[in-house]
């Protein structure tokens, strides 16, 4: 009998408990039937079947409940016919109707209740599953996740907003304790494994004020985060510094999804990625780059002084020869004064030339600043060509400057652009030195590409860029020269890129290498 009953039971409580409830319901059912059918008590006794149904609904399945409801209705009708016969009269019929209606309504309500309950159970299970999944992600991800309760600080910030505070940085400046006050309102809810690894063994400790151990109260990123909450932002990202339990400072990338719903601010997940190492590597890289740029600049200065020495040597040598010749004319008997005058005039002229060279060099060196200025490209190219004159002459290279159109001035750092030009022209000269075919020519072509970009093309008629070198010419430490460091083009490119420009190299269809500088006409980096 127990096994038979089992088929109808929900099986949620203990079997014994279910059987006791079932038994009570059965006794109640029989009692109601007895009173309804065999006693003369007038009244809608059958309504009381609903009690039995209510009891049974706790323990039996939907089907069994429906079967019981039909049984109850059948018993009520049987009792009605049994006690009132074929012609029952108005009153008993009404009572039966009320009872049957009560049974039907109760059964419907119970069934609906049951539907709701099973739906609730299903959604609870889904919720539990999703919570479990989230927990497992939370615990196992390599990103340090730190759950905080921001609800208090949010209400506080909203109050501040009502008081008219819009810029928290300003507010914090005039209220020095404000940041600490905000920080103390935040408490830690949980921390995952990665967060413990990053921050230390106390990362998950709750309680207000715990955040202050890890974040400096004057931390600007913290203020920015508070500002984001004040502004109702959906997401916050930033770089911040945290101090670990061990007292070590770590640079972290923060990412926080801020909820729309004020009530869920009690569990906000702060994602943190430790970028200390990356930043340090980046810093070392930048330093190396700066060091190389300085080295390249020193090399330029070296080339410059060699060129200067050579240039000065000519007029100074001439002055020496002229002065001694002058003495010889004077020593004649009689002295040839007309020749003396000519020699003296040459000395004056050559002295002036030497002085001009020094003047030019000085004005070039005083321009050695890192400030952007408006530059007339043609003037700069002319000046650079003059500076290179010695190298160009030595290798018998002709420079052909195409002045097609009027070019607007560009705003950039003069010495940097000049260094790039010197580098490209020196490369061109060296590339052509292996070629016997004359004339060795560097063509410099300046032309606006678009309204915003101007291009300076430096083309030689040397052997061009070898096919296997095409991808590598801009790579650091790549060189085709026996004594080259391989930094020239790499530095040129990054120098230009830092100013919003570009440097590209390719071969001209008619032969020779082409290096093309493009510069923005409006310097975006100012």
């Amino acid at each position, binding site marked *: 009998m127990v096994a038979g009953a089992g088929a109808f039971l929900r099986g949620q409580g203990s079997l014994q408990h279910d059987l006791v409830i079932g038994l009570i319901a059965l006794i109640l059912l029989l009692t109601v039937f007895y009173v309804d059918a065999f006693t003369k008590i007038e009244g809608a006794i059958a309504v009381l079947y609903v009690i039995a149904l209510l009891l049974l609904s706790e323990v039996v399945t939907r089907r069994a409940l429906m079967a019981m409801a039909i049984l109850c209705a059948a018993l009520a009708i049987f009792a009605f016919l049994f006690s009132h016969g074929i012609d029952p009269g108005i009153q008993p019929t009404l009572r039966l109707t009320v009872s049957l209606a009560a049974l039907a309504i109760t059964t419907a309500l119970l069934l609906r209740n049951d539907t709701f309950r099973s739906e609730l159970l299903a959604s609870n299970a889904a919720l539990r599953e999703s919570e479990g999944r989230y927990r497992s992600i939370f615990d196992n991800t390599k990103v340090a996740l730190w759950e905080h309760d921001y609800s208090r600080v949010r209400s506080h910030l909203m109050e501040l907003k009502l008081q008219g505070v819009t810029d928290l940085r300003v507010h914090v400046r005039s209220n020095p304790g404000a940041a600490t006050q905000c920080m103390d309102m935040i408490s830690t809810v949980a921390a995952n494994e990665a967060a413990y690894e990053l921050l230390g063994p106390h990362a998950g400790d709750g309680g207000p004020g715990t955040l202050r151990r890890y974040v400096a109260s004057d931390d600007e990123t913290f203020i920015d985060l508070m500002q984001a909450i004040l502004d109702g932002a959906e997401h916050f990202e930033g770089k911040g510094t945290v101090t670990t339990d061990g007292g070590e400072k770590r640079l972290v990338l923060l990412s926080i999804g801020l909820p729309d719903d004020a009530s869920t601010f009690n569990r906000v997940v702060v994602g943190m990625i430790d970028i200390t190492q990356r930043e340090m590597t980046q810093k070392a890289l930048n330093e190396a780059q700066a060091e190389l740029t300085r080295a390249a600049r020193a090399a330029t200065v070296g080339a410059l002084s060699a060129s200067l020495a*050579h240039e000065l*040597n*000519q*007029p*100074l*040598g*001439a*002055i*020496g*020869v*002229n002065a*001694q*010749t002058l003495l*010889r*004319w004077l020593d004649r008997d009689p002295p040839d004064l007309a*020749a003396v005058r*000519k*020699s003296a005039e*040459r000395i004056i*002229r*050559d002295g002036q*030339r030497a002085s001009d060279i020094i003047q030019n060099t000085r004005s070039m060196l005083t321009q050695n600043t890192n400030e952007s200025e408006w530059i007339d490209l043609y003037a700069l190219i002319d000046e650079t060509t003059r500076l290179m004159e010695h190298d160009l*002459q*030595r290798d*018998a290279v002709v420079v052909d400057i195409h002045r097609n159109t009027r070019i607007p001035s560009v705003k950039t750092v003069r010495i940097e652009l000049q260094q790039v030009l010197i580098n490209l022209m020196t490369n061109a000269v060296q590339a052509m030195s292996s070629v016997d075919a004359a004339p060795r020519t560097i063509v410099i072509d300046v032309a606006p590409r678009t309204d915003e970009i101007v291009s300076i093309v430096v083309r030689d008629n040397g052997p061009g860029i070898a096919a296997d070198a095409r991808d590598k010419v801009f790579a650091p430490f790549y060189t085709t020269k026996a004594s080259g460091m391989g930094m020239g083009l790499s530095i040129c490119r990054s120098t230009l890129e830092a100013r919003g420009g570009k440097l590209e190299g390719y071969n001209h269809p008619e032969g020779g290498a082409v290096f093309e500088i493009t510069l923005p006409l409006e310097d975006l980096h100012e």
Partner: protein
Amino acid sequence: MSHTTTIAIVDDDQAIREALDDLVQSCGYDSVLFASAEEYLAYDKREAIDCMLVDVKMPGLSGIELQAVLNKEQHKPPMIFMTSYRDDRTRAAAMDGGAFAFLGKPVDINKLLGFLESALRPVN
């Protein structure tokens, strides 16, 4: 002497050329000026040249290359080289090619005149 002594001055720098020209004239010699080796090779009265003052580094043919060309010819006037680059290799090349002297710039006038005189002294 059957003819006036003529010195050829081959230097790409005009100031140096003029200064040497004046110096040579102050010594009582004639001079002919050339801005490049090519210009000198194009000169049709090379037979009359008694001595040459030659710059080493010039656009086009260098002084050393000019020496190599002239060495293949009959008439080889003594060559006195002048250069701002005093590297031993160039010096050796010049001397091996039969240079009379190899002087650094700025030129020591007394040395130059001394070499000039001994270059022009008739070989007995």
